[in-house]
């Protein structure tokens, strides 16, 4: 599943990042790496997705979220 397909309130774990070097370094430095647990806080159409990761509330572009493969957990 892709990150942008997750519903509000879902907990998930990052499986893989299909990103180029620039995006990879940006998302990594702000806390999103493979294996990280994330919570989808808000996912409205046409708006960036709000996720909670490593104690931080992040807004991520929808397009970039398509490149983040995730797995829903418990």
């Amino acid at each position, binding site marked *: 599943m892709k990150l942008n397909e997750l519903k509000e309130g879902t*907990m998930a774990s990052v499986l893989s*990042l299909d*990103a*180029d*070097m*620039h*995006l*990879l*370094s*940006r*998302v*990594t*430095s*702000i*806390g999103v*790496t*493979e*294996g*990280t647990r994330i*919570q989808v*806080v*808000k996912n*409205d*159409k*046409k*708006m*960036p997705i*709000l996720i*909670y*990761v*490593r*104690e*931080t*509330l*992040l*807004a*991520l*572009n*929808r*397009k*970039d979220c398509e490149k983040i493969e995730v797995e829903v957990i418990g």
Partner: protein
Amino acid sequence: MSTIALLGQPNSGKSTVFNQLTGARQHVGNWPGKTVEKKDGSFSYNGKKYELIDLPGSYALSGNSDEEIITEDFIKSGKADLVCILVDASQLERSMYMVSEFALLDKPAVLLLNMMDVAKKQNKEIDDKLLSERLGIPVLPFTAADGKEYGKLKDMLEQELSAPHKLVSKPWVVDSGKEKSIDLVKAESEAKFQWVAEMLDGVTKTKTEKYELSKFDRVAIRPVLGKLVSIGIILLAFLVAMIVCIPFMSLGSMIPKYSSGPISDALTSINVHPWLVSIFSLMIPNVIYFSLSMAAFVLGVNLVFGFLEEVGFLARAAYQFDGVLSKIGLQGKAVAPLLMGFGCTIGGSCGTRVMDNWGQKMLAMAAVWAIPCASIWSIIPVVSGMFFPAWGTLLICLCILLYVVFMMFIVSKVFGKKLAPIETRTGMIMELPPYHKAHWKHIWKEAFFKALDIFLRALRTVTIISLLFWALSYSGSGAIEDSILYKIGTAIEPVTKFFGMGWRTFMAFLSGAFAKEAVLGVLNAVFVGDNSLLNATFNAKTAGADAGSLSTIMSNSVSQAEALAFMFAVTFNIPCVMALSTTYRESHSLKWTARVAIFYFGSALLLSCVVYHVASLFL
């Protein structure tokens, strides 16, 4: 003199620490050859002087942007005797990533656990002694906005400079100068977070697992309602800023009003040359008035923006408007200064201080210039009313608004490539910091220093430009025909005619670049002729244009097409000498300020030309 560098991610409170330590002893410029802001300053403690460098804010040190490269190179160069790293104690795990990258550079450092007040409020406990032991460097729990904590910080810096420590542990990475593959970079960054986890194991005890949106956030992040709420709050903030600055401005306006006459009489009575009389009685009081107005605006805007930024609201507004503004290469944060621009270009320009980097700041300022300020909205209906019925005026205002949008795209096309290079425009990846309590004492202090600084510097810039304008509009006899401006104006009228303006409207257009309030006064002087040009320009507000006779004379000697061209040209010209000066002060770049000014002047003429010739076909 020892040099200390401040290192930290955006929102770590780095600039607060920098401002609190250096106060007014700071210098802002650009890193050589880069469009990245360089801030350095100094402070004294126990009789010793220290130099402080504020490194550009970035999330990592992996060479992915100018900011990251400058920061990494500076630390590697060893120019800093000590690096003071700031992390956000309320988001320790994530912000420690910077420490993991710094550890690889093997330089002396101390660690500040900033935002302890927020962390405490979230019931987060941090064992700073254990962390210090693991890292091998001193760790200080800290709240940057609290002035009382700086004694401890200075003690620690002094002590460490005499006996510095380096980090004793560092994450695993492959030591090679070669280009690293994506997989290797992934593995390394996981190793860095693994290292952070090891360092923090047992250091942090409570960890929030599930995030609950606050009541306010539930509204603030809704797609439509959230945008309306954001616009409302920013406009409200502008009102508050105005309320703060109005007393200062009205006080300032009394200076030329009450001092011009007496100064002029006194100097004339002792036979001072009329030239000097007009400089001292007209120009100088107005320069002081202008500078005071600017400082008052800067004070008001910095107070409200300081507040909105510190409590965490601006990040929400940025989230709302990022999608729209990214189309012109700007970050979402630019929404606040842009909206403020409708009130006053000076306010909007100094509001760009919230932007993350210099390029974004300069681009936002260039965009703010395109937004017609309140003064323009008060001039256009008056001029338009002389030539067109009410619905025509409404239509003109609508066209102006549409052109604002178009102008934004042009500005982004012309300046965006250089100021916000395409490759740095990633889609939005930003943190929404937790809501903070505002530290008013700190906000006032910063706003006051900024206003004082602007006032002192503006005196100089405004004086130079005023002198120039004074020289052009001075007339020995008081008659317009004896001023240089008239001579130039009439001489180049064939050229200005091509752009759609006769010499009279062209002069009013020029004066609009000086102060928008001057436009009506100058129109009155050149058409009705009952006032000298100098008085009209510098005493704009007190001169009081006689709308009745002006209207009759203007509508007889100016065509509708020329009036239309004139209105557009005035609206999209250089906003005013104060906005120009603020832009220069905020950007610290004469080159870029001049570029933007020339662009606006040129494009206003071009616009006037197009409007005139198209309108001539129909009107």
